[in-house]
């Protein structure tokens, strides 16, 4: 297809110019004529021709200068400049190219060659135009995509970061590689006052990674708030991700259940680098991932076993993705595990450690592009009083819902083996509007009485084992084995709720199939720490109106009262 273009001809020879314009006009093009370089630049600026034929040697402004000015004025547009020349020496021809010339046409002019060149440059110009259009389209698409990602991220942040990452005993770092990173960091208070933590590193970046993070965060926060145990949560998340993620997309993750009251941390580690625990005295303990990442295997083969770790006040636990290990400097060297470990080994002030790691990694990658997400979390074991748990605000109208009811719920050995009854029971109690503000307290009481009944009653474990770190692990090992082989025994809950003048009263009885123990309800009132073998009774004592053991000690009764707010 022949396209008409506008050609600027600049030559100081009238006859030469006449020949060229005639050839071009005969070929159907529009021609602008200039007798020197200055005129050429002026005409170019005014009419923006598609192609420029420029004599090298001209008065006023010569061809070289004119070519530079025209190229400059053309900006992003491709305007081919063909030098008209009878110059023959190589250095003069090179000078034409240096000035921005794209080709030469030598005298005497040959119309066939001229036409061929014009066609060649037409193709080049069209390609350039296509390229520019596509570039602009890509830039537009990219800005759309970023805009969409910003909106999605705002939604994501509302879901994923509504937790308690800002708790006073937590330090964390999340550095997004793009708008979305592949890393997820979640933290939520349990109804009992402890905390669930999760650090996940999805394969890939951007939207694919964030999509998996959404249900993960929903399940994590939802189930934690309802009182589910961490194992149930990890299983549920694995099941969900396994069913929605495509093959090859999965999430390396760490889940931790921190109990400030018990001074313990349960840890599930799948596919992440080694995690560190630094004791208040500087001693370092390393935990290696012992599970495959989340979203890889089905529920049947999924393993929910955890490290049970005893933590003293001031001990600090660290979770991170491989972003730190793989952070590269300008020479492409990774930060590596050794540098990280050295910081821990040489550390003299654990309070400053987190900041030191951040600084050291930042210094390492100084000036280079980050090539993975750097996500890190430190959790410090503190006294429960230092953790301010969320208070559940409940809109209360007139008393409604069930106020006078009684039920009992008895769990046999098959059920006790791997079922956690607490979320169900808590949900039942939450049907009473007046109890809702006390969900944390009730959960704590129930979980304490239930674990006492199961571990000390049904299984008959000695709580003294838990007093040193080694025994602590042994305790949980024994518990797991005993539960696996459980074939007799029961735990029975009995609840009764009655309305009172000012609110309501809840009576709870928990009875187990164990032998009971020697208790002394009276001495307990005097010195509450003794006589109950670490059964967590002192704590519950403060939360309830009344608590006491009955019979052989395999049955305990607790009473809880709530008042209608006026």
């Amino acid at each position, binding site marked *: 297809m022949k396209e008409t273009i506008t050609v600027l001809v600049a030559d100081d020879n009238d*006859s030469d110019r006449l*020949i060229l314009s*005639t050839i071009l006009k*005969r070929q159907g093009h529009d021609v602008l004529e200039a007798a020197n370089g200055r005129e050429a630049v002026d005409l170019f600026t005014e009419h923006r021709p598609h192609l420029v034929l420029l004599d090298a040697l001209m008065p006023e402004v010569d061809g070289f200068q004119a070519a530079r000015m025209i190229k400059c004025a053309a900006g992003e547009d491709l305007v081919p400049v063909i030098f008209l020349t*009878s110059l023959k020496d190589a250095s003069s021809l090179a000078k034409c190219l240096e000035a921005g010339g794209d080709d030469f046409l030598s005298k005497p002019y040959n119309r066939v060659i001229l036409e061929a060149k014009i066609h060649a440059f037409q193709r080049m110009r069209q390609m350039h135009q296509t390229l520019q259009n596509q570039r602009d389209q890509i830039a537009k698409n990219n800005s759309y995509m970023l805009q969409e990602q910003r909106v999605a991220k705002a939604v994501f942040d509302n879901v994923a970061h509504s937790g308690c990452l800002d708790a006073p005993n937590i330090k964390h770092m999340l550095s997004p590689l793009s708008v979305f990173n592949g890393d997820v960091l979640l933290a939520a208070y349990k109804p009992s006052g402890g905390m669930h933590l999760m650090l996940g590193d999805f394969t890939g970046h951007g939207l694919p990674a964030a999509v998996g993070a959404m249900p993960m965060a929903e399940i994590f926060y939802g189930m934690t708030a309802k009182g589910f145990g961490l194992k149930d949560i990890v299983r549920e998340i694995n099941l969900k991700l396994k069913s929605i993620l495509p093959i090859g997309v999965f999430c390396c993750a760490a889940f931790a259940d921190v109990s400030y009251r018990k001074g313990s941390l349960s840890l599930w580690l799948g596919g992440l680098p080694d995690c560190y625990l630094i004791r208040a005295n500087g001693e370092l303990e390393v935990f290696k991932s012992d599970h495959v990442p989340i979203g890889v295997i089905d529920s049947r083969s999924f393993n929910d076993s955890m490290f049970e770790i005893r933590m003293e006040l001031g001990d600090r636990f660290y979770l991170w993705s491989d972003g730190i290990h793989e952070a590269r400097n300008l020479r492409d060297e990774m930060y590596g595990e050794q540098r990280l470990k050295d910081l821990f080994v040489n550390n003299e002030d654990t309070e400053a450690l987190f900041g030191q790691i951040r600084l050291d990694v930042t210094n390492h990658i100084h000036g280079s592009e980050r090539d993975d997400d750097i996500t890190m979390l430190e959790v410090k074991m503190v006294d429960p009083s230092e953790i301010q748990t969320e208070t559940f605000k409940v809109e209360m109208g007139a008393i409604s819902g069930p106020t006078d009811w009684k039920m009992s719920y008895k769990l046999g050995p098959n059920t006790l083996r791997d079922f956690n009854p607490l979320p169900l029971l808590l949900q039942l109690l939450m049907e009473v509007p007046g109890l809702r503000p006390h969900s944390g307290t009730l959960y704590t009481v129930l979980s304490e009485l239930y674990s006492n009944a199961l571990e000390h009653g049904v299984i008959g474990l000695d709580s003294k084992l838990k007093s040193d770190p080694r025994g602590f692990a042994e305790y949980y090992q024994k518990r797991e084995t005993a539960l696996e082989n459980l074939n007799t025994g029961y735990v029975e809950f009995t609840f009764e709720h009655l309305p009172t003048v000012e609110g309501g009263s809840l009576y709870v009885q928990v009875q187990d199939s164990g032998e009971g123990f020697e208790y002394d309800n009276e001495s307990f009132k005097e010195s509450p720490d003794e006589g109950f073998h670490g059964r967590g009774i002192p704590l519950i004592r403060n939360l309830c109106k009344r608590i006491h053991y009955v019979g052989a000690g395999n049955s305990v009764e607790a009473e809880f009262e709530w008042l209608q707010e006026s």
Partner: protein
Amino acid sequence: MSDLHLDMEALAELEDIMEDDFGTLLETYLEDAESKLKLISDALGAGDAEALRELAHSFKGASCNVGALPLSRLCEDVEQLARLDNIIDITPLLPGILSEYSQVKKILQEKI
């Protein structure tokens, strides 16, 4: 023996290209040539090598395009000498150029 001074084939092609404008082209060339020769002679008198080089280069190109190849080559000699600042050796070339031009002019005028 007009073809000693002009490449008649090139000229025929030019006539083919220019069609009705062929006469105008030749007139334009001749006018331009007269003025260039006057300027060349002036520059030679003034000993202005730079002006000589530019004029000779331009005249060389224009002559080449109309097929006046011997004239074009003479201009190229002037251009080369001027580039070397060699005014002395240019002076003897001028009568040759004028005589060659008058031959070319005679033939072209017949064509007009």
